[in-house]
């Protein structure tokens, strides 16, 4: 069965203090790894899709990377508006269509 483990569960950063969030996964053939941002009371907002080891994607202060066992979401010089829960999900090659989600990292950026 697919497994996705995110760490840490919660992270508090000072504004401008860069850090990384981790997503470790076990799947029967990775078809795609997805990062989402979720604000309180809202649905997840799509950030990135990564398909193969070595791939990197960037968007503003966020950079996602992928290896064969894990993905990192690097946050450079975060701002308070980056505060949210960041979710990682995987899609495997079994033919099923669902995403399997981790429990997320709750990020708080303090001004």
């Amino acid at each position, binding site marked *: 069965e697919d497994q996705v483990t995110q760490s840490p569960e919660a992270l508090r950063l000072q504004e401008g203090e860069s850090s990384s969030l981790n997503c470790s996964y076990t799947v029967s053939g990775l078809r795609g790894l997805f990062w989402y941002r979720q604000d309180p*009371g809202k649905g997840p907002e799509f950030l990135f899709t990564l398909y193969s080891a070595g791939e990197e994607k960037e968007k503003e202060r966020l950079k996602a990377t992928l290896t064969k066992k894990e993905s990192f979401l690097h946050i450079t010089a975060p701002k308070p508006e980056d505060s949210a829960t960041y979710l990682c999900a995987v899609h495997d090659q079994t033919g099923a269509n669902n995403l399997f989600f981790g429990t997320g990292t709750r990020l708080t950026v303090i001004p």
Partner: protein
Amino acid sequence: SAVISQKPSRDICQRGTSLTIQCQVDSQVTMMFWYRQQPGQSLTLIATANQGSEATYESGFVIDKFPISRPNLTFSTLTVSNMSPEDSSIYLCSVDRGGTDTQYFGPGTRLTVL
């Protein structure tokens, strides 16, 4: 991306009643998904809804409890039947644009069952 709306945005319901949640997409999509996010937990897929066929339910979810309709390529409903407090969750619909495997989510429906 896709513009997805859900109704209602939130509701408080009594035990034993049913609630139907609507999901509307701004363009035609083949696949729509319904997820549940229980308090403090991550998203769990309830079922996949394709237009013109019966919904496919994940392990632990049954049609009698969560009937789904998919009358056309832009709309779906999920009904939570005979509710109990354990059904208190956020219910989310999502769509796959096709060919990308990327799912885009609606804003969610926050359900509280008393």
